[in-house]
């Protein structure tokens, strides 16, 4: 019976999403509007339902518990992107002027859409936040004033992964003479880390072999046979979607030990490992957000929205505390902190996107603030600036035990001595191409 009710609820949601283009609370004057781009339908639906669920729950928590941010209620509207660039851009265009002051901030949950809207966001003066994805060199705020690849870019994640392998080997000097296979999604997303792997190979003296997996990655046997033949000590994988479970099964099939495979957060959800069954046991991933319900903020969300038959945004209560849900909560915390910081400068009223941008550029979340937010351990301390739109750069590593992810490290920092020069070089190239004058950060307040 409960399954039937769930199915009916799902149909109702679909009709709402399909006919009205999205769901959300009704807008009233004096509210701060937050657009939510969701891929709830299609191949990335697990991300959409989990991440947007966590994001919306957190917004509602702030509204119900605190009466909004600084007394300003938060209004949100969801827009279905189906994880497609054209739909994502359409959502951006549809919602950018909504609300009394327009959209506060966009989180596209899609690298392609983030790329596609970078120039528009500058023209429209609406900030783009991309947590753990998006354009890496946008961490240089001098060139990309409205884009914020917060927490850990692809490059930062990759250097932290090499550092983790070094830790496992007993020190970075022990990497000399080792062999690491870089198995990547053969797409712009997957190729992002080729150069940085080569640079680290040179720095630490290990050998790197690059093995591309043709998207979507439903067949990988020949590539994993090549991996086995090369006998690497470790594999660093850049995977997303169906590529992850197939990679794990293929590794098992050719006899490569799964506990020597390290991947990033796009592979680090329950939805990536459950389909792989036993083959996923021992798999290691890095993420800017650990899983679990032990964090006070997650406990508060459960108490407020999922206890005693209450209803939050998640259809499946068991997913509260899962990888995507927690990442969604982090989205809520960071975006709302941006609004809160901006209110300190511009006053407690609905703010424009440009004003929220200032807030995002002046985030300063230390352990004390994390404690207040109930997110100590869930979110890393971070500080953004005109120069640095990433702010953190660290990740935690988790290992799949066959049923759940277990966090196996504290925050592991990235190697900014490698990452930052690359970011500045790439951003400068973009600035030259687009004829962008670099902001002078010393003159920014």
């Amino acid at each position: 019976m409960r399954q039937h009710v769930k199915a009916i609820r799902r149909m109702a949601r679909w009709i709402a999403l399909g006919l009205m283009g999205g769901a959300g609370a009704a807008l009233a004057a004096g509210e701060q509007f937050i657009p939510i781009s969701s891929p709830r339908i299609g191949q990335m639906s697990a991300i959409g339902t989990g991440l947007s669920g966590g994001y919306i729950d957190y917004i509602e928590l702030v509204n119900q518990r605190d009466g909004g941010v600084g007394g300003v209620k938060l209004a949100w509207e969801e827009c279905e992107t189906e994880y497609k660039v054209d739909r994502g851009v359409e959502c951006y265009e549809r919602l950018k002027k909504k609300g009394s002051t327009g959209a506060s901030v966009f989180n596209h949950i899609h690298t392609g859409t983030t790329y596609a809207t970078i120039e528009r966001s500058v023209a429209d003066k609406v900030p783009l936040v991309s947590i753990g994805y998006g354009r890496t060199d946008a961490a240089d705020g001098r060139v990309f004033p409205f884009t914020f690849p917060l927490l850990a870019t692809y490059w930062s994640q990759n250097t932290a992964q090499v550092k983790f392998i070094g830790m496992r080997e007993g020190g970075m000097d022990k990497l000399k003479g080792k062999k690491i296979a870089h198995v990547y999604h053969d797409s712009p997303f997957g190729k992002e880390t080729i150069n940085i792997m080569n640079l680290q190979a040179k720095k630490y003296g290990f050998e790197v072999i690059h093995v591309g997996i043709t998207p979507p990655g439903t067949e990988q046997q020949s590539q994993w046979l090549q991996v086995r033949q090369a006998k690497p000590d470790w594999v660093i994988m850049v995977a997303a979607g169906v590529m992850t479970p197939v990679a794990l099964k293929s590794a098992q099939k050719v006899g490569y030990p799964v506990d020597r495979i390290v991947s990033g957060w796009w592979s680090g959800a329950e939805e990536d490992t459950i389909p792989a069954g036993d083959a996923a046991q021992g798999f290691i991933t890095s993420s800017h957000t650990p899983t679990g319900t032990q964090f006070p903020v997650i406990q508060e969300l459960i108490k407020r929205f999922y206890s005693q038959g209450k209803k939050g945004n998640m259809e499946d209560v068991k997913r509260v505390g899962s990888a995507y849900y927690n990442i969604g909560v982090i989205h809520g915390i960071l975006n709302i902190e941006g609004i809160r910081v901006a209110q300190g400068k511009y006053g407690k009223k609905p703010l424009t996107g440009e004003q929220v941008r200032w807030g995002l550029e002046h985030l300063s979340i230390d352990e004390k603030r994390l404690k207040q937010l109930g997110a100590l351990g869930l979110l890393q301390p971070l500080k953004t600036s005109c120069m640095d739109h990433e702010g953190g750069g660290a990740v935690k590593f988790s290992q799949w035990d066959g049923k759940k992810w277990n966090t196996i490290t504290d925050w592991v920092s990235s190697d900014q001595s490698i990452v930052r020069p690359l970011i500045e070089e790439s951003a400068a190239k973009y600035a030259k191409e687009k004829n962008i004058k670099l902001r002078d950060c010393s003159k920014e307040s």
Partner: protein
Amino acid sequence: MLFFIEVLIGGLLAGVMYSLVAMGFVLIYKASGVLNFAQGSMVLFAALSFVSILAMGAPFWLALVLTLAIMVLLGVVIEKVVLRRLVNQPQITLFMATIGLSILIEGLGQMIWGSQVHGLDLGINDIPFNFYGVFISQFDLFAAGCAAVLVAGLSLFFHKTKIGRALRAVADDHQAAMSVGIPLKHVWAVVWAAAGFVALVAGLLWGSRLGVQFALTLVVLKALPVLILGGFTSIPGAIIGGLIIGATEKLAEVYIGPYFGGGIENWFPYVLALAFLLIRPDGLFGEKHIERV
């Protein structure tokens, strides 16, 4: 040499998996002369229904029977609601209808069963066994066995049963078949139901490998070059085509791929199929079309 053999065997077994999807296309094409664009969605729908029924607590065999019933029902409804109204319409109209059906079935599957990714354990170990130094997947061998049983069953169905012969007549000419008393609607319903059954088998095997998720619809991309090679009307052709595509794409990826920077596995089968099209437009086992002018 051992590595070459391992790649070759892996490729052949992967090809069998492609054939399983290709067979569903062949069934519909034989009956209506139309490439069923919705076959991938049917694979997803079947697998999604099966795991969702399992998740409700149904035992394996009951879930299997119920899913089969759902797929048969789906086939009958498609015939009644869509195809019956398109009898004698140009083939492009039927093809466009299958595109619409594909999107509808995908949406319906997620709407009814949700979009959560599911694991599917058929109880067959995917740990390889060592055969004279060559690692062979037990799961792939099981899939090959399933494909062999399906081919034998479908071949018997087409050649030894009345409805199989009627089906071939319908494929040649709807109107002529109807004029000699062949119940077109009945034949189409049976064939769509059979395609649903093939989708279920493919969905279970592919779902077990990839997980039951939206990406299952993408496995059809692997079936298209198999069809071009084997012929759109031949079940054994789908198997042979699958074996050729599977083996050549894996060998090409390993031995030729490095010269192209890797990642040729997706487009190489299409190049091969294109070359075949130029030499044998009807594929290896396809029926030759001779038209009187």
